């Protein structure tokens, strides 16, 4: 309530107050602000237009089935985005599934449980995770995580779970180490700090009075968390997850190192796959101008753009409807 009050007051002040002088500098400043705002729109528009125009010949060649066709054969020039689109979504969803509970845990620990002296080091450590360049995540994943997965994680899982019907299909194949699951795990680490940071913000913004009242009526820590803190910040939390998802969708270098780069469809979590971003990173340097391959790559870029746009739009929609509710 307080915030809205100040808001109205502020706007009324602006509306009634005598505008200070500075007749020349003011319009220039305003024009510059307009220019900065419009600049982003134009830039974004140009990028979309370029991707679309560049990819149009590929779309014309393969039709709308480009979206789900699983062929990616540079020799016969039959291209389709099916493997990459599903790989992009699959790896990003794994990342969110892994990162979400961890982020919740870290954020709640930091805001509620952690003793003062521990709060800062952990907070800084989480922020530092975000500062590590993605190529470092990729190299770390390639040299450390992939061999560990191949030696200790995948063999027992394959032995244990692959005979089970249905679920077993997720755990087929030789223990390569690299693959969809490893890519998802690395992505989870990469989006973890972003989601956590926003969760911390949200949890800190829960008015202490409400929480204290809950504790006062005898609620346990978990109950306060479950029934007060989370519902209070749910809208912003959905937004945080969506932003993390958006980042996971477009990640390039780290994924290229650990996903195994196979343009084949596979149900298995351990099978090598590809994402849109990793395919572009792999194939772009060798795609010659005017070739169908380059056009297909540009079309892939356009599809990634559209997917990211849908995710962001969806998050705005979810946040808005939750706010109204």
């Amino acid at each position, binding site marked *: 309530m307080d915030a809205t009050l100040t808001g109205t007051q502020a706007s009324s002040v602006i509306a009634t107050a005598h505008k200070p002088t500075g007749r020349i500098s003011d319009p220039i400043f305003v024009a510059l602000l307009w220019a900065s705002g419009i600049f982003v729109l134009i830039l974004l528009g*140009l990028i979309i*237009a*370029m991707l679309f*125009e*560049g990819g149009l010949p590929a779309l014309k060649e393969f039709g709308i089935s480009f979206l789900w066709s699983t*062929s*990616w*054969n*540079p*020799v*016969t020039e039959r291209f389709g985005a099916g493997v990459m689109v599903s790989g992009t979504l699959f790896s990003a969803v794994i990342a969110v599934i892994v990162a979400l509970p961890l982020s919740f845990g870290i954020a709640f620990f930091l805001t509620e449980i952690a003793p003062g002296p521990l709060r800062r080091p952990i907070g800084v450590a989480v922020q530092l995770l975000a500062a590590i360049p993605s190529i470092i995540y990729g190299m770390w994943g*390639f*040299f450390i995580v*992939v*061999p560990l997965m*191949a030696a200790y994680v995948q063999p027992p899982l394959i032995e244990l779970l692959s005979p089970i019907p249905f679920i077993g299909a997720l755990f087929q194949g*030789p223990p*390569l*180490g*690299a*693959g969809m699951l490893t890519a998802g795990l690395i992505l989870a680490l990469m989006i973890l700090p972003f989601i956590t940071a926003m969760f911390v913000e949200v949890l800190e913004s829960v008015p202490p009075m409400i929480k204290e009242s809950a504790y006062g009526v005898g609620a346990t820590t978990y109950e306060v968390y479950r029934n007060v803190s989370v519902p209070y910040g749910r809208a912003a939390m959905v937004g945080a997850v969506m932003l993390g998802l958006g980042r996971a969708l477009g990640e390039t270098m780290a994924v*290229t*190192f650990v996903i*195994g*780069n*196979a*343009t*084949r469809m596979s149900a298995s979590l351990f099978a*090598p796959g590809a994402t849109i971003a*990793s395919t572009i*990173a*792999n*194939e772009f*340097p*060798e*795609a*010659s*101008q*005017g070739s169908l391959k*380059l056009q297909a790559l*540009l079309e892939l870029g356009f599809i990634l753009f559209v997917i990211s746009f849908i995710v962001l739009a969806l998050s705005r929609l979810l946040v808005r409807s939750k706010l109204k509710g």
Partner: protein
Amino acid sequence: MKLTHILGAALSLSLTLPGAAFAADINGAGASFPAPVYQAWAAAYKEKTGTGLNYQSIGSGGGQNQIVNRTVDFGASDAPMKDDKLVEANLLQFPTVIGSVVAIFNLDGVDSLVLSGPVLADIYQGKITKWNDAKIAELNKGAKLPDQAIVPVYRSDSSGTSFVFTSYLAAASGDWKSNVGAASSVQWPTGAGAKGNEGIAGTVKNTKGALGYVEFVYAAANKLSAADLVNKAGKVVKPETKAFVEAAAAADWKGAKNFAASMIDTAGPGAWPITSATYILLPKNPTNAAQSADVIKFFNWAYTAEGDAIAEKLHYIPLPDAVVTDIKKAWSAEVKADGKAVWTN
């Protein structure tokens, strides 16, 4: 395509700008496989003549794009450019050095291994899946091959090395030729992709039972164990300089158009079957004659004994002398500014 052109031009401009500051320097871009020798040549040449060379190792496709757009003085490509494309872009193509691709493996208790083209093609198609398969055992009589899954590893980034390797598989196996084909990146029927030579070497080192392919230059520098191959003459050859030189000598240079002589699976009795030259693309109608002459002077020097020694030290194979003579003839006959040859022997 207009917008992509503009973006491409802007990109290439930003790549070549550092070079533009020193007008006398030569700018080249392309294949990563010969990059070490080009850079070593450049350093020695600069010391000798004062003319520097900026070589951007951006991949063969990138090299072709940039020289077609004329944003560099020369382009470099591992795979020869198609004849009609060379005519269309008005480019002269000539080879510089020869390199080979070897198959590396990680197998406990096995130090030396013999493989053949058809067997490699079957492995990379998923038709041979175990190391103790009868076809591999037949080539390695007496060796203790484990009952272990083969993990084929390939280059995930599109690369000239993959082009050479898949060309070999296509030459050695009709099955591979019709099902997969040869290109700088193909739809691999099985296995996992790793980025760059380092990626393949790392994956093979980390994965028991893995099989991969890298340039010999890279395998030699990192002391990776490479398999012997059965060549077209039916002889088992070791991956060593002698066999690469023989492959270069056995190639049909006279009959090749635009110097694109195939050294893949040649008939020489001691020839290494996965051997290929790497190429330079030079405009036949340079706008800056002096700059173009500088490029030719540079490569002319690279073909001298001095240049050859540098290449050999880095495990590349110099071209046969007769080929170099033909290249020099092509330079003076075909690279012209205003109807005048920019360089004469």
